[in-house]
């Protein structure tokens, strides 16, 4: 049994100040992890309240106005505070320099600045909850968002500020990947998670400014009465949707690409086999990133957008399926004849394959204009979106969290409880959202406060599913926090993985590695070497 290293980044300096002023990417990653966990808990509570309200038609626990605010907050908090910074800023921050064999990111101060900006934006979002709250949905569509009495300006300002945090992280990662790779680590010897973070960073830097512009235009119209989106003043409300989705569709890939990177690591590590189609997986990330900028109009098929534009956007949207399919088939080929061990991170990776396949394929229904006319703004869209974002990104995030948890804290969590929790999350998620697919096909509109009797049973299923998921997450919090204090020491490479972060102690020392790192083998050379586990 291995023991904990005496000197590591967690213990070398102590006290709150040493954390708040740290430039260590690992500590900043942990601080991000705390930030996004709180946000996730907050967004999750909103979700549970929404589902509880929808248990029966009519009023259960809150009024219609509060309900509108709840689903807006659920969306805004989960998107801007949890899922966008989730994988890159928390896990990526911790792992990226370790994977490259570097001592830190390229700009440690910028890294800390991005965390403070994130916290500031998050606080502003909380302020908006207490100053009237927003009831527009997370999409802030005009003309409603320029007319409602809610705290639209505060919330959009928060999203504006959070955007800068995202841009800083992206810039930092691009430069880090270009400049700080260990000697011998050529581009095609980088772990695939690094490739996916690179593709993500490009989207963050290119697309996020457009979100900033959009929100500023919205604020200008709302506060100064400038006619940008209001037709009465010569504006165009559909233009808002163009602006908004030009960022927010690529943003979906800011969320899913790093998730796919994690899955590549997990599948190869736990199949103990070289990843199949390394280059195809690496390049398909860029394929997805590029196509993501050409498809935003698929959110607007029923908005009054011209038919020509709808046809073009529908056509282009189908191309997303190609690089996504390339990835999925390469993962399956990696599993084939691998010696698979079903540790908790792998359970999440396998869940991902099922859920992401459902999420991706139902996207094709929505990309088809004829079926979208029927399905738009129904629970089908809600279910599709959650299968991609929860079934894809959150599940991969949880897989990555359980994978790198022993590296972050140096201790193992209880594997049995972790498996029970993973199972509850998987089952609960499907119960919650398969019923929403069915309701959606039958015409249940999204965002409605109440519904006809015919949807009662499905809404009931969905709400019960949310409780199962809630229980799964509750168990997870307990065993993870417990493991930080009481878990058995993990050793430097508990999973027998070949990427570089496992070559240092867990938790790593402040300077990451004992000496200078040099690449001695590729990240997936399982056919050449048997990794040391301890």
């Amino acid at each position: 049994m291995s023991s904990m290293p005496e000197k590591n980044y967690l213990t070398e300096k102590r006290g709150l100040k040493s954390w708040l002023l740290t430039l260590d990417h690992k500590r900043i990653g942990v601080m991000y992890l705390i930030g996004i966990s709180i946000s996730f808990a907050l967004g999750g509570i909103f979700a549970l309240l929404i589902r509880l309200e929808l248990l029966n038609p009519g009023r259960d626990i809150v009024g219609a106005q509060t309900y509108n605010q709840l689903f807006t907050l659920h969306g805004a908090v989960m998107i801007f505070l949890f899922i966008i910074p989730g994988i890159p800023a928390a896990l990526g921050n911790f792992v990226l320099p370790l994977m490259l064999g570097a001592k830190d990111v390229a700009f440690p101060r910028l890294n800390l600045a991005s965390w403070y900006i994130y916290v500031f934006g998050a606080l502003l979002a909380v302020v908006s909850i207490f100053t009237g709250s927003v009831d527009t949905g997370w999409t802030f569509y005009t003309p409603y968002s320029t007319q409602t009495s809610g705290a639209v300006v505060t919330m959009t300002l928060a999203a504006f500020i959070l955007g800068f945090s995202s841009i800083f992280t992206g810039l930092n990662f691009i430069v880090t990947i270009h400049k700080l790779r260990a000697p011998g680590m050529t581009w095609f010897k980088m772990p695939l998670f690094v490739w996916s973070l690179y593709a993500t960073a490009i989207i963050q830097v290119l697309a996020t400014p457009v979100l900033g512009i959009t929100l500023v235009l919205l604020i200008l119209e709302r506060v100064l009465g400038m006619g940008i989106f209001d037709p009465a003043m010569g504006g165009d409300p559909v233009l808002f949707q163009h602006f908004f989705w030009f960022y927010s569709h690529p943003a979906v890939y800011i969320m899913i690409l790093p998730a796919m990177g994690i899955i590549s690591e997990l599948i190869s590590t736990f199949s103990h086999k070289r990843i199949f189609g390394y280059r195809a997986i690496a390049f398909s990330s860029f394929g997805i990133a590029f196509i993501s900028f050409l498809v935003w109009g698929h959110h607007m098929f029923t908005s009054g957008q011209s038919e020509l534009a709808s046809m073009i956007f529908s056509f282009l949207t189908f191309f997303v399926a190609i690089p996504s399919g390339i990835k999925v088939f390469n993962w399956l080929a990696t599993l084939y004849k691998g010696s698979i061990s079903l540790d908790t991170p792998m359970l999440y990776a396998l869940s991902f394959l099922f859920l992401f396949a459902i999420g991706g394929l139902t996207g094709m229904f929505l990309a088809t204009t004829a079926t979208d006319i029927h399905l738009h703004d129904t629970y089908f869209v809600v279910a599709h979106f959650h299968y991609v974002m929860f079934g894809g990104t959150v599940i991969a995030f949880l897989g990555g969290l359980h994978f790198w948890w022993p590296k972050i804290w140096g201790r193992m969590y209880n594997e049995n409880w972790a498996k029970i929790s993973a199972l509850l999350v998987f089952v609960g998620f499907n119960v919650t959202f398969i019923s929403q697919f069915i309701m959606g096909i039958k015409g249940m509109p999204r965002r409605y406060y109440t519904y006809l009797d015919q949807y009662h049973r499905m809404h009931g299923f969905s709400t019960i599913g949310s409780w199962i998921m809630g229980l799964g997450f509750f168990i997870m919090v307990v065993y993870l926090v417990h493991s930080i204090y009481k878990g058995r020491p993990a050793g430097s490479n508990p999973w027998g993985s070949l990427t570089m972060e496992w070559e240092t102690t867990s938790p790593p020392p402040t300077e990451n590695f004992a000496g200078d790192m040099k690449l001695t083998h590729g990240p997936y050379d399982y056919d050449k070497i048997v990794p040391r586990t301890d």
Partner: protein
Amino acid sequence: MIESTMINRNSHHHIAPLWLYLAIGGALLVLTAVTITVSYIDLGGWNIVVALVIASIKGSLVAMFFMHLYYDKKIYTIVIVMGLLFLSIFISLTMFDTGRRGDIYEIKSEPIKPEADFYKELPPADSLDQTGHSEH
């Protein structure tokens, strides 16, 4: 290690001769004059095309020489061109919408009024079965 390479690169900075700056400045003034002159000639839709082409040339001159893009590493040019490329994607795809609304199907946006003609042509409500379909 990073810092030392940065200092190295800075020391390679190119210094352009003064006459070049003056020539570019002169060219910008001339192009401004051309823009103003052309704006008095009615070219229909082409006015805006001409104005944008001249503006793009001016912008490129400033970026290339005043902002030293011409002498710098190619990567900076690529970064700027990428930004412009994505801007043009945004504008052109949006214009497929804003410029072409109602192109394929004629949109009949008559408000629905009880006295509207097509209401009178409908069969009376009690002849509809439960699914809302007419018996005929």
